[in-house]
């Protein structure tokens, strides 16, 4: 990476404004051939806008894009791809009813006469790319029938249809298992070795420190600095991102646990989870850790009345209960903050206040009417308590940042005064600053005497918030750890299905 070398891609003074917002404010950025350059910033810092400018989806108002020394103008994704700039989207953007091959070459299917698709060429080329990615499925398969991870591979395969100069990965690991991550990192290293410049966007610090050569940080649409990864600590990066230092330590009073609030005995739902037993006490956070598909979310859904267990018992506060619906669960004091906040947590076009009071709207009435005052009182209380940033309760939930949306959902369930609070993936897709606030909040809730279950796929998260960790593998509980006894190694072993000595 000598300074004499020509950058694969260079951005100079990029400005992009939207009505009322200056989304990018003079951003400089470069990536060298054979370099992995991580791009960091909180949600709303301008990363996505920058990526869309790079991928030809937005036109910058000011500034220059220089590729291999030549200033270029890219007005469509196809033009960007022709220049060798390829974006791999964060959210899967595949067409489910089409084959993997068609998806890989979407928008540029090889053509024969009369606009016919040249299937032979298409499938040959696609299979070659999948082979290069060490994928075990054929390109003729319909995408709808592939696993999420394989779908992600199809997404990545798209980048390899051209001789890419620059490949942009936008949160590529969000839905991948650890094993699949290893394959992905191999691919990135392979691309790197071929002299491709990589732009890597992620919220996960560990990945960034494993992969990247340099780190550039954006904040509020502006460039905040570039760091050499080898000479940097996580703390430096975080400070640059949020403008202050993050406190990651757990310096609270030693927790005091009360009575057993929730007890699950031999709960079984064939094909999803088997023979699951555990307890949660008041004042305690129990973390459920495991790979995607290990059955954690399904247990939560069963406890919330969304699934019917084949056998087993659920006891709330010592009483055996039959939970037939979410309404029943709510009546028993169980709350669930679901995994997917946009699809399961919020009615996006509804305003913040109405979203928050939705589960108890029936109880907030004065006569036949909903009491405006009672609703607003709840909203104000939880907006202050959770530090939700919104100009007004009238704001529709859809326009808030991910972190604030998640706080609305948490507020919605806290306001129900639950006896058991289940939080599934509390910080997925949320920036570092909000993440830490939510972790803090979960600890506080425990301290206030709530019985809390946290489901997470992120090891630092479970380690940080839990008092006890339940490790799951393939629908079964492999081991339970007290937080004091757990080590990263034993935890990884437990969730990978490696047998070890039982905990006493």
């Amino acid at each position, binding site marked *: 990476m000598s300074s004499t070398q020509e950058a694969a891609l260079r951005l100079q003074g990029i400005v992009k404004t939207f009505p009322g917002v200056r989304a990018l404010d003079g951003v400089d950025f470069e990536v060298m051939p054979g370099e992995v350059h991580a791009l960091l910033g909180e949600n709303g810092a301008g990363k996505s806008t920058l990526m869309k400018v790079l*991928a030809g*989806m937005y036109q910058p108002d000011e500034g220059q894009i220089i590729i291999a020394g030549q200033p270029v103008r890219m007005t*469509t*994704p*196809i033009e960007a*791809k022709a220049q060798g700039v390829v*974006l791999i*989207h964060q959210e899967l*953007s*595949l*067409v*489910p*009813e*089409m084959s993997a091959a*068609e*998806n890989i070459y*979407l*928008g*540029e*299917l090889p*053509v024969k006469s*009369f*606009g*016919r*698709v040249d299937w032979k060429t298409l499938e040959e080329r696609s299979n070659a790319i999948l082979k290069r990615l060490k994928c075990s499925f054929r390109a003729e398969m319909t995408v*709808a029938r592939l696993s999420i991870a394989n779908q992600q591979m199809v997404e990545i395969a798209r980048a390899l249809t051209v001789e890419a100069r620059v490949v942009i990965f936008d949160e590529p690991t969000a839905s991948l298992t650890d094993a699949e991550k290893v394959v992905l990192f191999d691919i990135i290293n392979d691309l790197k070795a071929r002299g491709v410049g990589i732009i890597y966007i992620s919220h996960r610090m560990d990945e960034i420190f494993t992969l990247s050569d340099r780190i550039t940080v954006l904040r509020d649409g502006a460039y905040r600095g570039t760091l050499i990864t080898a000479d940097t600590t996580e703390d430096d990066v975080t400070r640059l991102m949020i403008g202050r230092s993050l406190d990651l330590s757990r310096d609270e009073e030693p927790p005091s646990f009360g009575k057993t609030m929730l007890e699950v005995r031999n709960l079984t*739902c064939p094909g*999803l989870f088997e023979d699951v037993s555990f307890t949660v006490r008041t004042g305690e956070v129990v973390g459920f850790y495991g790979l995607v598909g290990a059955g954690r979310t399904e247990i939560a*859904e069963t406890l919330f*009345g*969304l*699934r*019917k267990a084949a056998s087993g018992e659920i006891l709330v506060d010592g009483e055996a209960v039959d939970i037939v*619906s979410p309404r029943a669960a709510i009546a028993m004091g169980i709350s669930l903050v679901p995994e997917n906040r946009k699809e399961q947590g919020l009615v996006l076009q509804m305003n913040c206040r109405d979203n928050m009071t939705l589960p108890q709207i029936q109880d907030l009435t004065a006569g036949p009417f909903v009491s405006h005052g009672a609703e607003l009182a709840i909203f104000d209380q939880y907006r202050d308590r959770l530090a939700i940033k919104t100009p007004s309760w009238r704001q529709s939930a859809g326009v808030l940042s991910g972190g604030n949306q998640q706080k609305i959902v948490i507020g919605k369930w806290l306001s129900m005064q639950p006896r058991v609070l289940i939080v599934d993936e509390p910080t997925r897709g949320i920036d570092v600053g909000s993440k830490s606030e939510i972790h803090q909040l979960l600890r506080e809730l425990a301290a206030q005497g709530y019985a809390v279950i946290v489901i997470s796929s992120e090891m630092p998260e479970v380690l940080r918030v839990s008092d006890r960790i339940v490790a799951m593998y393939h629908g079964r509980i492999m081991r339970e750890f007290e937080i004091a006894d757990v080590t990263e190694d034993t935890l990884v072993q437990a969730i990978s299905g490696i047998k070890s000595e039982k905990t006493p």
Partner: protein
Amino acid sequence: MSRLNDISVLRWLMRNPIWGFVLLIFVFFSLSADNFFDYRNFQNILVQTSTIGIIALGMTLVMINGNIDLSVGATLALAAAFAVDVQSWAAFATWGNWQILPAVCIALLVGILMGAINGFIVWKTGVDAFIVTLGAMLGIRGLVFVYTGESSFFATNFAYSDFSALSLGPLPVLAVIFLLCVMVVHWLLSRTVHGRNTYAVGGNREAAVNAGIRVGPHMILNFMIIGFLAALSGVLLSTQMGAATPNLGRDYELWVITAVVLGGTKLTGGKGDIIGTFGGVLAIGIMRNGMNLMQVPAFYVLVIIGAILIAVLFLDKRFNTSNDGGLRL
């Protein structure tokens, strides 16, 4: 037949339940209606279904795109009016039987134009196609009345209506045109880039935009295709009548949508095919024909067809939707 073949036929029927239904009613009417199982009756069924069938092909494209077109009945009437009226224009008076040619061309162009207008509005305004074409359904019908002045047009040249009585080999020419359209649109949808992009735009519009597919012009093209097919259907219908009436094609949009949905195309887009639509069209055609032959009173036909539509939807939901993982939503 080998066992393997049996299984694949079964599996094919499972994926295309409408053809199982077509088979069922075919056997039923063959056994219970006297004149049903007869080669000439099969010809009739094909001719009778061609009107709705040809439009249904276009509707399949538009619905896979995630749109809908409620204005096809009115477009059909407008095209029929042009096809019949232009023949009598003074400009073509000396053309003899060739006066039919410009008439048909103009009628088809009018259909394409109506489709283009719908498509353009859907693209540029971003208003839902259901609303745009609901408006167009009223508006184009208004154009028909403005153009015809409320009365029927008729073709003075019997050569025009003789066309519909022609046969090509063993099949009536209308049936041949219909089958030809089925094959061409099937080929278009399954083999060409435009056809594949139709699935992409309907299945995941964002992905299609990101992949550089120009979604707007793409949708306009599909609206033009359905406009063309509705006009073609109108021209063929007017050859059967030797005339065009301003009320022609009322409620056809509902029948067309019924046929397409019976054929397994999803209203949400991204899914469906011509084989299914063809089955859906035949199902309606056979039921109507068979019930006519069995003299089922018209009042009961309404109840039966409505109930079958709902029943098919119910069965499709039971057997053909992807497993939602047992979540009680």
